[in-house]
């Protein structure tokens, strides 16, 4: 997730303090990982440097938490471009998992074990998300669903690999 773009997007509603921004971010998008203050301020200073935000008044006192930030015209253009560009489909875990399965086959270990253990770990994460979904509001549900579908995709790939272990073994040990 691009924190910079997300913060910019949040600033479109009006200028905010860094602290406010963090809270708004965490509330909406921070379910998995709330932002650290450090991240907020490094990101804001980068956006400032690039002319995407500007300072909009400083309260009495010292420190970055006294400053308010406003989005600039260039910032708005940047958000627009970001929203209009699709995210790169990530290869997630396949590389690591594939390497483990192949190495297990090559070394004569049980590739089924690799798969069972990975499935267990994936299912544990999915159970957690499923529980959270049950108690959450619609926003929570949608965020959890997204994670669930991704984990499911990994698992489906694993099951398919498991069903083809014989073939794969022949191929990799040839």
């Amino acid at each position, binding site marked *: 997730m691009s924190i910079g773009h997300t913060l910019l997007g949040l600033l479109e509603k009006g200028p905010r303090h860094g602290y406010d921004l963090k809270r708004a971010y965490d509330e909406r998008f921070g379910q998995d990982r709330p932002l650290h203050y450090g991240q907020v301020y490094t990101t804001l200073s980068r956006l400032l440097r690039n002319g995407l935000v500007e300072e909009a008044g400083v309260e009495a006192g010292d420190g970055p938490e006294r400053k308010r930030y406003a989005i600039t015209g260039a910032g708005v253009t940047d958000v627009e471009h970001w929203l209009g560009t699709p995210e790169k489909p990530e290869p997630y875990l396949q590389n690591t998992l594939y390497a483990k399965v192949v190495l297990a086959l090559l070394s004569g270990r*049980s590739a089924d074990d690799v798969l069972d253990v990975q499935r267990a770990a994936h*299912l544990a994460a999915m159970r957690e998300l499923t529980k959270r979904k049950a108690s959450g509001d619609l926003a929570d549900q949608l965020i959890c669903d997204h994670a669930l579908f991704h984990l499911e995709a990994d698992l489906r790939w694993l099951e398919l690999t498991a069903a083809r272990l014989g073939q794969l073994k022949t191929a990799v040990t040839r």
Partner: protein
Amino acid sequence: MNDGGFTRGPGPVDGPGPVKVLLEAVDLHKAFGPTPALDGAGLSVRAGEVVAVMGPSGSGKSTLLHCMAGILTPDKGTVRYRDVELSAMGDGQRSELRRTEFGFVFQFGQLVPELSCLENVALPLRLGSVKRKEAESRAREWLERLEVSDVADKRPGETSGGQGQRVAVARALVTGPRVVFADEPTGALDSLNGERVMQLLVTAAKETNAAVVLVTHEPRVAAYSDREVVVRDGRSREMEPVT
């Protein structure tokens, strides 16, 4: 290769501590013709837990479920329900057990097409000699719980797949079973409907402390379980829940 950690799972536990095993299958063998469908599979189920049975197609999941439910008799091995061996029961006793203690949800084709949905849900109670009025009022409550009161007077053929499956869940739960056997209960549903059916099934089972043995190949459905058992080549591996 050794047997890759395939074990029978934990034995029964008495007294305080973990909940006692309710239903236990040990070292089941079953063959249809020359190739074995089950080759030493086992599974222990405790009251109130939801166990997902996973594994490739043809690995023996349904056969395991049918043996545990007393629908199939294994060639070798034992199935115990509350410490009584199913094979020691007479046929009548076994069907009585299935009707009173067990509930069943399958992928499709389980509702009687000539009866209304309400009559379908009331049927297991009627077979147990519950009076019609009483049976239908309990059936109505379950239809309501499963959010399908509106199809009560329709026949199964006049409902959507999702509605039909909810009716089937209502019918499986209406007798207050201790174990619900569900074989791909969401297999014919889209993901939103499938999830809702799972939510309703698991919630109702937890509320009544019924165990659920859930065969599924869908990870998102399996995520409603407490733990999973993997069946491969007729053998089973009970996985410890990861915390």
